[in-house]
């Protein structure tokens, strides 16, 4: 395909990673390292972003519903594209020591509703995986061999609909265990735990970015298509037909571009028919290889 732009209707910032984080103390190390600046401070959910590094972050506050609401707010406020990755990140309780270990949640269960989610592609080569229970009150029993948090289930309910399940991740750093009480958690400790894992986080992001780029390529619409759609009044049906035949035409003639001057007096349907004829004329010498 030729040069691409963002996905239609989403003309937002070029954000690749959307972070949904409960507490400011958990967010600050990432805001600093990715050089994000505040872009929304008047609402319930502060948003930070940096288009150059491709990161946006919303601070949700504690709780499952707030995580879902904050993710939705970030999506709508910055018009996040469908190829972006969504990451619920923060600290979590775990059934065993030590604190400071980083995990990918490969199964998230809401203790309240029983609903189960299976976010993301496995990143097994980079970090271990664990089941995570989202609870409505801080967990001190650690009865299951699992992580415990208060947001992930709400996040997982919403985030896959913004992009897809394979671009939705829940990454947690262990902050408390049966031997290390949650009452010992301080802002300073949270920062320390996260900073120690920044190199690992960078590796994880590099892996996710490969998927983001692939989706971006697949979903993006070439500029010349958008220009034609702006110039000509396609009905919804014809717009679908135009995009479909353009896709085939471009695969068939990869070095050619649509020349607006050829179509100045054409009706939308005539553009579609012309492209169809060109693709059809090439069919008898078709080479699928």
């Amino acid at each position, binding site marked *: *395909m030729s040069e691409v732009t963002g996905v239609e209707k989403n003309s937002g910032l070029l954000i690749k990673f959307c972070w949904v984080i409960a507490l400011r103390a958990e967010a600050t190390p990432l805001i600093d390292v990715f050089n994000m600046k505040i872009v929304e401070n008047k609402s319930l959910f502060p948003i930070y972003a940096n288009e150059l590094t491709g990161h946006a972050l919303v601070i949700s506050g504690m709780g499952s519903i707030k995580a879902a609401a904050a993710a939705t707010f970030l999506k709508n406020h910055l018009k996040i594209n469908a190829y972006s990755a969504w990451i619920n990140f923060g600290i979590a309780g775990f059934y065993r020591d030590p604190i400071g270990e980083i995990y990918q949640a*490969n*199964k998230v269960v809401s203790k309240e509703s029983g609903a*189960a*989610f*299976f976010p993301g*592609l*496995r990143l*097994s080569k980079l970090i*271990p*995986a664990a*089941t995570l229970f989202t609870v409505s009150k801080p967990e001190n029993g650690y009865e299951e061999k699992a992580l415990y948090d208060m947001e992930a289930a709400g996040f997982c309910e919403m985030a*896959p*609909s913004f992009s*897809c*399940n*394979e*671009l939705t991740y829940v990454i947690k750093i262990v902050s408390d265990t049966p031997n290390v009480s949650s009452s010992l958690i301080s802002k300073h400790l949270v920062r320390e735990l996260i900073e120690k894992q920044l190199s690992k986080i960078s590796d994880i992001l590099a892996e996710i970015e490969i*998927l983001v780029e*692939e*989706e971006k390529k*697949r979903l993006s619409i070439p500029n010349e298509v958008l220009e034609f759609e702006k110039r000509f009044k396609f009905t919804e049906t014809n717009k679908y037909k135009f995009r479909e035949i353009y*896709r*085939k035409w471009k*695969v*068939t003639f990869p070095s050619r571009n649509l020349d607006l001057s050829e179509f100045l007096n054409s009706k939308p349907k005539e553009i579609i028919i012309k492209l*169809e004829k060109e*693709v*059809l004329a090439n*069919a008898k*010498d*078709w*080479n*699928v*290889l």
Partner: protein
Amino acid sequence: MIETIFFEEQIAEHQTTQRIRRALPRANWVPIDRYQELFNKRHQNFKLQKKNPALILAKKYDNFVLPVPSGFGMESHKSFYFSHMYNCLYDCKYCFLQGMYSSANFVLFVNYEDFFTSISEKINEYNGKTLTFFSGYDCDSLAFDKLSGFADDALNFFSEFPNAELELRTKSIAISSLLQRKALSNCIVAFSLSPAEIAKSLDSKAPSIGRRINAIKKLTNAGWKIGLRFDPLIYTADWQKLYSSLFSEIMEGLDPSMVHSISYGPLRFPKNMYKKAANLHPDHKLFAFPMEDANGVISYGTKIEKQMHDFLKSELTNYTSENKIFQCIS
């Protein structure tokens, strides 16, 4: 390499689950209630998931054996199919599975014994008649066999029912479980094949055509009957020459009496499946051809289909008798 295995808790102790657990002790084993909670979730991305699919071990409860869709089998026998697995290790661009399921994860139904009970009920129901049972409709019959061990169990079962044919349809070269035992006269190992150049472009992750042909020859030498499946037929420049050399490469040194049947079928998609597949591979030339849409079925059109049918029929009769050649139209 499978990294994550989701298993229904109810089959945790099943012998197949236990065998897989022994084979993959270092995988991440995650308990689930029912496979649908994972497999049927909305907003899954088949293409991304295909990069690192998980294995789901589940129990099947019903519809173990179903009549084959019209045009799938040979008309001469009453035919059924069964799916002990959903999805495939391979990633063939034309495969209908990518349009059928929203998930690329593999589902393996571990209760093989219930499949065999249902098959024996069908055999009893059609007492004395020759029946054909197709495996490999929703998966590849052998690709996962080193882990699943299904083929061995199925062959043990079918060895008791000489009137029932089993077709294992595959692109796999994992044939060691077959070579280690005596050939079963009522089992057909049917290989899906395309010209090497086409397979290289379309059959991602599958063994090359050369290796498939090699597997065919090893099996026939060991006494196994073979099916040759040229389905779907792919239209491209010089397709006659490509298919012609493929046939000659397969048949060279092969005892024709070991060929149970040869079938071929045109490339066809239900419209919705075509849309999904094209959406997954928008830049692939397979989905850029000006296909025809007739009553919701997307195809090359009758003219090309007829050309290909006539050519295949005529070429293949050089190698085997006409009564072994079938056209499948699904």
